[in-house]
């Protein structure tokens, strides 16, 4: 049966790239985050003093460090895509691993930061600013974890199949997703950590 299907399916072919498909996911995700950002700004304008006072309680150094981590990790992913495009398996895997290693720093910093806030009795229910803080950074953190898993899977698969074959579409899609994680943080960082703290 399987052989028969494989032999006679006239449309069967290897897809050239996955990238356009994942853009649906990315656009939908960015829209949701965008609406959350608007909601934050509207709530902020209604409770300006509270939001400014709460933002001052965040450690901007952690936020800046995490921004640098994600931008660096994003750069390594770009280099991985470039290496994959030219069929260089070792380089692709090396850059993916470097991106993973650097990216892991974001998780460590974030967990330290969450531990610090919870240790001081600050939770999602403390006030509206911290509701947005925990929700925005929490949902972003879930995206980050998913991205780390994707990068690890790509690294694993790159060791077992040609990186410039069908896998290339997945590497490109994974890179686009990782850039979205990066992009979202670039908005979240100034909005939560810097706005109104001076």
């Amino acid at each position, binding site marked *: 049966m399987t052989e028969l299907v494989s032999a006679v399916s006239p449309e069967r072919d290897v897809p050239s790239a996955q990238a356009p498909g994942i853009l*649906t996911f990315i656009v939908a995700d960015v829209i949701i985050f965008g609406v959350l950002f608007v909601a934050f700004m509207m709530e902020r304008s209604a409770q300006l003093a509270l939001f400014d006072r709460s933002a001052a309680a965040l450690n901007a150094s952690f936020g800046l460090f995490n921004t640098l981590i994600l931008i660096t990790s994003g750069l390594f992913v770009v280099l991985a895509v470039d290496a994959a495009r030219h069929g260089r398996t070792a380089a692709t895997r090396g850059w993916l691993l470097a991106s993973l290693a650097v990216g892991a720093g974001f998780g460590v910093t974030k967990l330290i930061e969450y531990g610090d806030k919870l240790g001081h009795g600050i939770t999602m229910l403390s006030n509206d600013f911290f509701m947005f803080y925990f929700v925005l950074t929490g949902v972003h953190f879930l995206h980050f974890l998913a991205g780390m898993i994707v990068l690890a899977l790509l690294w694993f698969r790159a060791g077992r199949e040609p990186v410039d074959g069908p896998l290339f579409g997945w590497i490109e899609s994974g890179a686009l997703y990782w850039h979205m994680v990066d992009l979202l943080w670039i908005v979240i960082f100034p909005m939560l950590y810097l706005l109104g703290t001076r």
Partner: protein
Amino acid sequence: MNPAVSNASYFKYWRFCAAMGPVFLTAFIICWGMLGYNIPPIPADFTADQLAQHFRTHANEVRAGMVGAMLFGVLYLPWTLSITKVMEKIETDGNHMMSILQMWGGGVTVVPLVTSSVFWLTGAYRPDDLPPFILQMLYDMGWLLIDLFYAITTIAMVAVGVCGLTDKRAKPLFPRWLCWYNIWAGLSFLFELLMPFFKSGLFARQGWLNFWVEFLVWFIYILLTTLYVFKAIPRLEQERTAQLATARQ
């Protein structure tokens, strides 16, 4: 593949089951949403007395709505099965893991749809005899169940997406963008995890994110997936005809 079985027999009921998706959706919006006063939900920050007043004023509409929701809610099952049948034609390697996951995920989705309706129906059954806090509890239970049992629906939606992305056809049965939409839509339900922590604002059960966005996202998933199941069936019929012709040679 049994060549003695015609396409008419082989694909019998597929379109009928696929059509149950829009039928379910229409009936659910009318019964559960409009008659049952769940579109939009009664706000979570209403007092028990306000909620009791709602049940006592609209008891018969809520009864009719919930009876309808329980009746038509089960149509999600045949609709799910139509998707499963198409997915089986994508998983041609004999590994039907995603198809089966989708079938179970979609099938079990009927449970929160029907069970939550029972809670609202119980509140509307004898609202004059029940104290306001019990009515409030029943209404809360209904919403907590339907919103927080989302993960079973997420499994089905993600399974459709993952399976569709593995389709090796040059023109996949489920387009890539739809597969990614389904994966995103299923995962976006994670916001419902925040619902029990808030009684007002965007994450509350009546909030624009956890109600308006999430339910709209789910309704769009139903309509888009139905559309592409209907588009897939004639293509699968043509594929089977070609396979039978090849087998005869």
